[in-house]
């Protein structure tokens, strides 16, 4: 074949190969998505279905002991170009990410590269955003024939400025294909849970007290026939997740509740000084408005929280909101959370 003919052929080949392919693109895989709660900062976070156990399979058996392993799931950074995990923002380019074991049950371990995380405090580099893609080896070592489940809790850390460690995530490793994580530990929504979209949350700490204002305009809020706080009262739970966590619950006694006109909902009015919730309006088709103040409320933390969750419980019914993006933050003084969509599920009770 002459050189010219080969060039012509190569050109034709290139043209043919450049023609649109007839197939479809691959779907996103089953890995954990690694991102942050805010653009260019915030807390590191993982999006994954933690209610799904990590199934390990036999690898090597010797002397009555079997090693079970798997490489799924791996870690993949949220793609800044095309992909966003629910509630996750891409991590800034060049940010190094590590994974650290915070709790490891006996028989379980996680090998990342050359490092085996088999005790709390051990950590290994995962890589650097945005090209972070790591599959480790999830491992269980059990006597032959034993079916079991063991837990490993991990968190993500970085030395980069502007980012905070993630919350702790717990993985359940099992060699039992029939194993399922007990529902009491999952965050899957139940029929009685209603996640709501949040409009604004402000928390301010003064010299003597903290004030909270929350507005959730969500037309989807529904009240059923039996949802009447005048009968058994209600409970309000406020949780701050992050480096300075807090978790407080307030009882809202039945005597303080009043029905809104035309059966649209209920209103709580706190009158005693010991009642931090000053007013709470729950209105079907409109949403929820809360005002609270007092020393019983959590203080604004010195570092930004990963998320602020609020759960209102009336009987067996729960309404919840989770704010993860901060619009403003002044350490130990004031924070304002931006509007947030309804979470996929409510936090566990």
């Amino acid at each position, binding site marked *: 074949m002459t050189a010219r003919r080969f060039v012509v052929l190569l050109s034709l080949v290139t043209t043919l190969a450049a023609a649109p392919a*007839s197939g479809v693109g*691959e*779907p996103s895989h089953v*890995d954990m998505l690694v991102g942050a709660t805010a653009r260019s900062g915030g807390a590191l976070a993982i999006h994954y279905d933690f209610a799904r156990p990590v199934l390990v399979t036999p690898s*090597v058996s010797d002397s009555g002991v079997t090693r079970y392993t*798997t*490489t799924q799931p791996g870690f993949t950074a949220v793609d800044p170009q095309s992909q966003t995990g629910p509630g996750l923002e891409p991590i800034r380019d060049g940010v190094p990410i590590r994974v650290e074991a915070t709790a490891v049950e006996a028989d379980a371990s996680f090998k990342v*590269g*050359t490092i085996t995380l088999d005790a709390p405090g051990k950590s290994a580099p995962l890589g650097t955003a945005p090209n972070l893609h790591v*599959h480790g080896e999830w491992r269980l070592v059990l006597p032959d024939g034993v079916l079991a489940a063991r837990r490993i809790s991990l968190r993500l850390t970085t030395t980069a400025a502007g980012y905070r460690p993630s919350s702790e995530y717990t993985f359940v490793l099992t060699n039992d294909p029939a194993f399922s994580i007990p529902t009491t530990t999952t965050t899957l929504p139940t029929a009685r849970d209603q996640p709501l979209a949040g409009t604004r949350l402000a928390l301010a700490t003064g010299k003597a007290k903290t004030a909270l204002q929350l507005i959730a305009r969500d037309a989807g809020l529904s009240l059923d026939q039996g949802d009447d706080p005048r009968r058994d009262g209600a409970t309000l739970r406020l949780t701050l997740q992050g480096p300075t966590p807090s978790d407080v619950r307030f009882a809202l006694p039945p005597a303080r509740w009043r029905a809104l006109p035309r059966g649209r909902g209920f209103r709580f009015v706190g009158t005693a000084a010991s009642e931090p919730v000053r007013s709470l309006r729950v209105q079907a088709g409109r949403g929820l408005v809360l005002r609270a103040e007092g020393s019983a409320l959590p203080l604004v933390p010195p570092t930004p929280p990963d998320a602020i969750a609020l759960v209102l419980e009336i009987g067996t019914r729960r309404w919840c909101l989770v704010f993860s993006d901060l619009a403003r933050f002044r350490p130990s003084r004031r924070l304002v959370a931006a509007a947030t969509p309804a979470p996929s599920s409510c936090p566990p009770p």
Partner: protein
Amino acid sequence: MPCVSIVRPLIMLLLSVALPRSAGAHHVVDFVVTSTEPAGGQLLVSYDFTTAVPLSFNFALGETSIYSGTNPGFDTADGDEFFPGTSIPYPIFPPGIPIHVVLVDNDGGRASMKINGVTLAQPGDSALVGTSGALPPGDLHRHPEWQLAVQGPPGTFSEARIAFKVSTTHPEYRDSPVYILTLTNGHLPPPEFAADGLDRASTRCQATAGKAAHAYANQVLSALRRCLDAVQIHRAQQTAGLDPSRAFAVAERRCVGAVDLLARGEAKAAALLRKRCGPDGSADFDDAVIQQHLGLVRCRSEQLIAATYFRARTYLSRFALAGRPLHERFPCVHQTAGEEEGPS
């Protein structure tokens, strides 16, 4: 043009193995499973097979040390990816193509791979990687566990090759060529630099690693060169009908002496590395990793000598140490093709 149907797959085939992968996305470390044609042809695995896959110690099984790793994995191309160094896009599979991996050879059982819960440990073993277009976890993105079984305690350097191909039951596609991947335990892991200021301990460790590898490689090359140069003089004297006995004695002394010389050189390099990189230094490498790496340095140097001196292995086998042929002390001085033919 009929030639196109021949040339295009040929080019694809060459591209799939000849060029290193371009950077970007997670395919940097993964195989790209593709084909020579958009909806058929020969299956291909695009990857730089000239690079060895570093594995790290996992566990000991009696007298055997098991090393493992999870890269490279299998994946398919995204729509906007090209064969490395070209503007030729990877053909994308239509949905529903099941891809299997078939083990062709595993270096006498020393190498294996586990994928989707199936361990491929014997030639002919196969497992489903995934199916194009399937939703996870049935998709084509899978990371196997690559395993290297080494006879000896941790610290024993070893490499093994694993040969595999990909296949499918779909009638429009043919099996891929056989690909050979080298698994090794001799690579040093990357140092971990501290974030609170310049990490002098780790930078010194890395510099020492380079220096020690350089010095030890020089020692290996020098010792074997001196040995084989003396052998060449002996051969030349034989050829010329001169008395070769003195030259033989010199060659024997140098070649046998190389064993002890290199043992001391290795110990010195290991001590230096332990000081800078061990628990009292930067704590980047443990003893076993250091020993394995020096084993790699020695092996590569021996390979270079074998390429420089034709029949090096045969010459070494003429001498003995402690009743064993000397070439056994230099396992990476491999036999050269044609070495067994002709006068030595």
